[in-house]
């Protein structure tokens, strides 16, 4: 990763945060605003980071994955559905149902990816078409099943959505407990520590995603698996001549990518809110793709880019808190469609290559013929 790119990312994030701090500082101390925005940023960036990881694994192995959106959507639905089945029909209890729901979501992502692998690696279908198939399939399948199972006449659940097992709990990382003694009797110090603690109080998938970013980065650039994965994405014939099974590597990595997209799907219906609505991924799979490109096909870079997109959403959410103190000339920042545009505008900006050229793997999107 080059510093220019990281510098740009840091700059955008700082600008977005500063705007919120300027507006809200009359109502809340800056530290509290910053930490709460950071917390939101990390949470909101979770599916983007996981989606980008999905893309990184597929494309590093030479398979373009524009089906991340569909994989996420299907996983969000089937994970949630699985949770409801486990909870209502098998009476598995909350914790077990939720855990199984996450596994269902991951598995769904893997199966969708298997379909992409079969299409693009075995049958050498144009990979853009293969990904589009996944996207259309996911929209159709989830919309249809959602209606048939819950809302249709004579549907399985008789016209209403039964109670879901809920969402994953927030994990408390005991920063306050650890650092409180340093503060002694100072109340402001304690408040500050508590504020900082908020950044780290995240849910399991959010924390898992960050760990996975660094683990993936290490795997990709420092292990045998990573070297071979990148080799089949750069020059599959060269890999073949040193005895690497190109098809096997591509299958495995596309499926790994699918598992990541599945976990991203779980974020929506099992970690964020316990409900499903058609098209709920709302283009975030494609933003993941943009994050992957801006991150130059590296996990850490893609995560950093995902944070930029996350921070624009965090800005939008936090702006609601300062509704009453917002100066009239800044009022437009409350409009979701203005701030909501940021990721898309950034994406276009990034893809023009102004912030340094990104280079995809050389054999990305090219089926391998022996």
């Amino acid at each position, binding site marked *: 990763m080059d510093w220019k790119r990281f510098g740009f990312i840091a700059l955008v994030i700082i600008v977005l945060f500063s705007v919120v701090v300027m507006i809200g500082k009359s109502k809340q101390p800056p530290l509290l605003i910053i930490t709460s925005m950071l917390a939101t940023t990390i949470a909101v960036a979770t599916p983007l980071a996981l989606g980008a990881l999905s893309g990184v694994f597929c494309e590093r192995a030479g398979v373009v994955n524009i089906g991340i959106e569909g994989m996420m959507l299907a996983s969000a639905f089937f994970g949630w559905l699985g949770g409801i089945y486990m909870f209502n029909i098998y009476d598995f209890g909350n914790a077990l149902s939720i855990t199984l729901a996450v596994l269902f979501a991951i598995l769904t992502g893997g199966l969708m990816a298997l379909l992409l692998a079969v299409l693009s690696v075995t049958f050498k279908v144009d990979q853009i078409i293969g990904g589009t198939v996944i996207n259309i399939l996911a929209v159709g399948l989830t919309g249809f099943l959602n209606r048939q199972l819950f809302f249709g006449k004579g549907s399985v659940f008789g016209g209403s959505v039964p109670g879901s097992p809920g969402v994953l709990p927030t994990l408390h990382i005991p920063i306050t407990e650890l650092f409180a003694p340093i503060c002694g009797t100072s109340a402001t110090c304690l408040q500050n520590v508590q504020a900082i603690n908020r950044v780290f109080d995240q849910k399991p998938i959010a924390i898992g995603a960050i760990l996975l970013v660094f683990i993936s980065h290490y795997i990709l650039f420092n292990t045998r698996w990573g070297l071979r994965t990148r*080799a089949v994405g*750069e020059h599959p*014939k*060269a890999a073949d*001549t*040193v005895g690497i099974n190109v098809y096997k590597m591509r299958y495995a990595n596309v499926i790994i990518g699918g598992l990541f997209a599945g976990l991203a799907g779980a974020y929506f219906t099992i970690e964020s809110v316990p409900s499903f609505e058609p098209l709920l991924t709302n283009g975030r799979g494609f933003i993941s793709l943009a994050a992957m490109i801006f991150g130059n096909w590296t996990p850490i870079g893609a995560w950093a880019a995902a944070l930029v997109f996350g921070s624009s959403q965090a800005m939008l959410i936090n702006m609601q808190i300062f509704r009453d103190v917002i100066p009239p000339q800044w009022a437009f920042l409350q409009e979701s469609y203005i701030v909501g545009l940021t990721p898309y505008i950034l994406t276009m900006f990034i893809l023009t290559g102004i912030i340094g050229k990104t*280079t995809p793997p050389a054999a990305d999107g090219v089926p391998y013929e022996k």
Partner: protein
Amino acid sequence: MTETFMLSNVETNIVLEAKRITKQFPGVLANDNVNFDLRKGEIHALLGENGAGKSTLMNLIFGLHLPDQGEVIVNGKTAMIHSPNDSIALGIGMVHQHFMLIPVFTVAENVMLGDETVKRGALDRNTVAAKINEISIQYSLNVDPHAMVGTLPVGLQQRVEIVKTLYRNAEIVILDEPTAVLTPQEAEDLFRIMRDLTGRGVSIIFITHKLKEVLAIADRITVMRAGRVINTVLPSETDSAQLANMMVGRQVILTVNKKDREPEADVLKVEGVTVRDQRDLETVHHVSFSVRGGEILGIAGVQGNGQTELSEALTGLRHPTGGKVFISGHDVTGKSPRVMTETGLAHIPEDRQRHGLVLSYTVADNMALCDYYHPPFSQRGVMQPKALDENARKLIKAFDVRTPSPFVNAGKLSGGNQQKVIVARELSRNVKLVIANQPTRGLDVGSIEYIHSEIIKMRDRGVAVLLVSAELDEIMALSDRIAVMYRGQIVAIVETKKTTREQLGLWMAGAHVESV
């Protein structure tokens, strides 16, 4: 290693033997009952034209394909080679014509790929680098394990490929057309490395179609033609003419027959042309010369001395930053290729696949690329398939292009036939000037002979020819006058009859020019 080799060399020691190998591809019998053997520590050249079956035989030995019949015996044992893994395990390494290297990986990463050294789950780059350094020093290869492969010159990349085979302890190394991409100096270096390798007991199969190289370096020569082994000979008992004869299957004229001819008026006139390359460096400085009708002017020089940029500037592919270019008195400086073509230029470009052909177009379409927008090919903006077809059939016949039909994609043809498509398109038009850049690079003897004769024909017809080539033999055989380019300048222009190979070589190396 050397001592043991010396001892065991008392008897002829066959390390690899291919017996009665037959391989059928759809429509072609690529290998027909082929027998081949390799002795320890020798360089055994496998000579043949493109499509003779050399690469097929090597791919069978290396495990990229399976033979239909026959067997491969390695170190006295029948080997079951189903994949490159099997051949690597048997100590066979192959340096492919198109390098199997990943440009964005370091040398160490490329070398270890597929045979990685891992310490606690992580790639152990340092151990690998140390081993590469060891190999590099042993054979004086001068390879830096931490360099990014994409930044290395072609000659060094090839050494990385050699390191890759040695890293896997290869005792049999197959080099597939290794000199095709090298400059003469790099080729000399490669031959030195090959000698070093055989001196340490490595056996080399050297695939090529260049007669001179075979005679210079090989211990034995096996000639293949049309899927069969024609003969195996010793270099001391043969010569170029006999080898060419075996390769092509008929008498080949290696020397070009050329009648004396009085040149006519200037056709191409270049006045003080200056050109910058894509990095904006000035690579051609104030070059002036002219080519007359009925004359071939050869531009000699080691590659990378501005020949590419000069010929691009003269054909409209690059804007000169200074000077003037005239074709038959018309100022065409900085004009588009179409204007140049219409003024009477035929261009045989250096890179035939990128600038000469549209590989995904049919032969017929490629043959009309220069004047597709004129009748008869186009009537009121609509292409006329019948006219394209007729034109293609006529040219295919006249220029002996070997293609199954005019509707085959140009990309499917062999290199020699691709070049013939370009030559047919360019030379069949009514032109005044031919600029041919490396017209025979990478081609087989038969095609080279043919293209040379076509160029001579143009000259005899009164056309001016500018020939750019890195092959000094080609320049000397064809040209009436020779201009030598060195560091972007023309350092000498002489009549071919009044100079020698040695003199030209000195100029090419930048020796000071006293008199021209």
